[in-house]
């Protein structure tokens, strides 16, 4: 398959992940949708790597994975702390900054 198919697939997955972030209310599910978006970016990077014929895209994808892992760790720890304080994992409950 030519890389453009992979890039197109990556775009579709990215957009779906974006919609998921906007629509879901459970904080963990939102996080998972963000992970989906990151994965879509990884796919695009790897496709570009095949396009250029070198491995730079793969190395970048690798670093993205590492950073995503670190981010997930910290993010979930934050979520746990919030849950302990508020007893709720819904992002709609944190709306004190309203007008």
């Amino acid at each position, binding site marked *: *398959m*030519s*890389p*453009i*198919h*992979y*890039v*197109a*697939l990556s*775009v*579709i*997955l990215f*957009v*779906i*992940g*974006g*919609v*998921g972030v906007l*629509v*879901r*209310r*459970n904080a*963990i*599910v939102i996080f*998972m*949708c963000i*992970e989906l978006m990151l*994965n879509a970016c*990884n*796919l695009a990077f*790897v496709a570009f*790597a*095949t*396009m250029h*014929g070198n*491995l*730079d895209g*793969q*190395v970048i*994808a*690798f*670093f993205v*994975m*590492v950073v*995503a*892992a*670190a981010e*997930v*760790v*910290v993010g*979930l*720890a934050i*979520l*746990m*702390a919030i*849950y302990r304080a508020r007893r*709720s*994992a*819904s992002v*709609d409950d944190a709306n004190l900054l309203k007008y």
Partner: protein
Amino acid sequence: MRHVLAAGTNTDVIARETIFWILAVASVGAALAMILVRRAVHCAMMLAVVMLSLATMYAMQGAPFLAFVQIIVYTGAVLMLFLFVLMLIGLGSAASIGETIKGQRLAAGLAAIGLLVILILGIGHAAIGPAAPQTAANGTNNLSEIARLIFTTYVFPFEVTGALLITAALGAMVLAHRERTAPKPTQRDLAARRLATGELAPDPPPGVYALHDAADRPALLPDGTTSDLSVSPVLSQREVIEAPPAVRPQVETPAITAESGEREPAPSGQMGRADS
């Protein structure tokens, strides 16, 4: 992995195409399901599907190292982390279907369609050529090539990412830490507490007092009563069940707390008991 990477033969191309399309449909479908299903655990499962299909695609594109890292690290570690936290926090929360913010879904859908169109237009106009031929260097060993790149060209990002990982680990520890407001209960305190409840010994594991294991013999609950659930309802209708003899020695009826009667494990209760 060489046979996977080798290009040129027709069957290879057909195989690639079929695999791609199957995986593409599967991953898009799983992604859509992920944002549409209610239960969070199902979302996690769908994400796993997406990640695995992505791993396969990496393998097809000549990135075997990434494919395995995807499976081991992403699906195996990160997703499991998600599941742990899901279990800890909220399987039953955010169950309502209705959208609290008016027009959010419509706006999100419109924005998504818009972005999709724009990006597709962009990549349509972009000069994304065909796959470049594999270089000899890449052909030999993908892993050592990546390693070479990381430790020469990208050594600085590598070091920074290392620092980031350390920071993340420290941050997670700090965030997950809970200050003790009371002194840590010693074993003596725990024993005293258990004594106060009246249960000096743990309940026997299931089957200790079982005399038979026939299908028509009901199982025994720890307090000596039979459990109707352990027998098939067909048999209990026909009343072929024998009452079992008293099998447990008569002791004073232990106090039964509400906690042990719960069927579903309450996470707070469990957590509360676990570290108090």
